[in-house]
């Protein structure tokens, strides 16, 4: 197992090099000079030359990449053009809020998506199956930002049952510990704050989960149908096991393997969705910060964000691969 993990981790190194080089080349190879974009269309030649020199854009490309990489591995992504603070210092405090939202969304996606897939597969083409797959089809078709707006309108503006935005109500105070506020509330014994945090988490989590929920439901159904057509399922029925025991014990247990991989791949769409969801719900995470930086054209922040999101995505998929190998020993020896 240890050797497998090492092998997988080593395979990441070229990918990470590639990702950083691609992020770097994004600035340099595409037509359109960052200095011109930064200064606007009507900048003079001198001011463009000055900005190019300031950012080191007049040096040879490999040198620029080397400098960039040397700084990046030490967590130095330059300064924000807006706040003039180091980019990394802007990102880190915002990370826990995004982790909280993402965990909320994954929970919703798994808790709803897997049962929908299982029920659909247990009775293919039944009314339940059609409803479940209809829900899944809707989930992959809805723009998350629109779903968020409509949920806010119905549940916050119209019904007044859930808060519209933010992580906590203005009247709730909480000692920050992990900065994952629902967890902080529980850890400090402040149950009122934990409850308030969870109420704030409901709509953003549902919004962010919609796409992944749909994918997980469809994947679970497909994997279940596959598993339920295996010989061991027929054997289980033949020896007189109850339907539910076969579906859960023999079907779901085997169907969950491919589902694990899909959950890992969903992290990519969750990170993207976080930018949109956090914007709508004024969620103080890295997604909203990315949105603000895009509006401000804060290039060092945008680039660092792209790189960080991609690294997180790649690392999560490494964890998923390892988990998969742990669940299915055949993988390790392949």
């Amino acid at each position, binding site marked *: 197992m240890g050797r497998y993990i090492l092998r997988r981790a080593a395979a990441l190194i070229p990918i990470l090099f590639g990702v950083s080089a691609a992020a770097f080349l994004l600035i340099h190879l595409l037509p359109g000079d960052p200095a011109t974009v930064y200064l606007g269309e009507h900048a003079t030649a001198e001011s463009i030359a000055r900005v190019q020199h300031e950012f080191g854009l007049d040096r040879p490309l490999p040198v620029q990449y080397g400098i960039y990489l040397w700084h990046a591995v030490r967590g130095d992504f330059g300064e924000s053009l807006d706040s003039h603070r180091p980019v990394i210092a802007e990102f880190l405090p915002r990370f826990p809020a995004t982790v909280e939202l993402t965990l909320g969304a994954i929970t919703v996606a798994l808790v709803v998506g897997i049962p929908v897939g299982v029920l659909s597969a247990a009775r293919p083409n039944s009314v339940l199956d059609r409803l479940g797959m209809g829900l899944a089809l809707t989930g992959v078709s809805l723009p998350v930002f629109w779903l968020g707006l409509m949920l806010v309108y119905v549940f916050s503006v119209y019904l007044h049952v859930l808060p519209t935005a933010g992580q906590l109500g203005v009247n709730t105070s909480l000692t920050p510990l992990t900065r994952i506020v629902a967890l902080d509330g529980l850890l400090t014994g402040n149950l009122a704050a934990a409850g308030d945090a969870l109420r704030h988490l409901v709509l953003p989590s549902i919004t962010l989960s919609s796409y992944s929920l749909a994918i997980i439901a469809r994947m679970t159904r497909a994997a279940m149908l596959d598993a339920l057509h295996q010989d061991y399922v027929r054997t289980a029925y033949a020896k007189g096991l109850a339907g539910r025991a076969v579906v859960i014990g023999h079907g779901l247990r085997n169907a969950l393997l491919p589902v694990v991989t899909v959950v890992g791949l969903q992290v990519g769409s969750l990170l993207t969705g976080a*930018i949109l969801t956090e914007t709508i719900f004024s969620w103080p995470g890295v997604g909203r910060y990315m949105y603000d930086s895009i509006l401000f054209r804060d290039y060092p922040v945008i680039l660092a964000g792209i790189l960080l999101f991609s690294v997180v995505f790649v690392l999560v998929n490494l964890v998923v691969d390892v988990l998969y190998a742990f669940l299915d020993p055949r993988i390790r020896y392949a």
Partner: protein
Amino acid sequence: MLSSTPESVTPSAVARPRARAAGRSTWRLAARRFWRNANARVGFALIVFFALVAVAAPRIAPEGYDQENLLGRLKPPSAAHWFGTDELGRDVFSRVIYGARISMTVGLVAVAGALGSGAVLGIAAGYTGGRLDGFVMRIMDVMLAFPSVILAIGIVALRGPGLNNTILAVSIVNIPVYARVARASTLAIKEHEYVVAARAVGARPWRVLLRAILPNAASPLVVQATLGVAGAILDAAALGFLGLGAQPPTPEWGAMLSDSYKYLLTAFWAALAPGAAIALMVLSFNLAGDGLHDALDPRLSSRA
């Protein structure tokens, strides 16, 4: 008609029309299966509907998409304005209709670009193998390591916002998907006897690729492309919502949402219509794509 000519007596000339007829009937059978699927029919009808709306937009829309009326701002839906008016008093119904043009174009052009480049790269890599294969596919791996919209945001943010850059960005980030599908099909197909036979009779590589491999690799690509249009429309709308896509006063649905969501409390209709339009158009391509998938791969559809 070929049979009346003397050349048709040679085996190759006889074999060709027969192969073509078989190819045609494979697609005809698939079309029949597609048409028997109610979901696929709905999806196809919706796509036709949106296409007609897009083409006839100036004739259908009661007002121009940029016709402002500052006295009639944020008015609720009425007989004159079916979907209400927005923050500049523009008719939301007219803007949604014009928006169909933009989303349809963005989806189709972006996918055409991605499909074209991806298929060429994938087939070339799969057929040639060796170093070229390794090189191309490692680049594709790196591109896939980025969450796609994040990469698209990077491309557009650095190139400057706008519709053309949106199309370019969505197209680029989708290339690896088609390259992988095309490569996988090519690897499977190139060992088949008809490909070996084509090579053995001395067909040039490009002829083998175009006549023997591409037609047989087409069906997974067609399915992927149809579903890809749905994804491309969603991604482009997300970029529009982030202010990176079409710029005002272009009636792009995502951009319309980002303008109107600040007025959600007082005028939710301005946000309702464009979002519903995106969802419906994306749904139609997803329905058609699923239908194509089942129709072109009968083994799957017969089971579920």
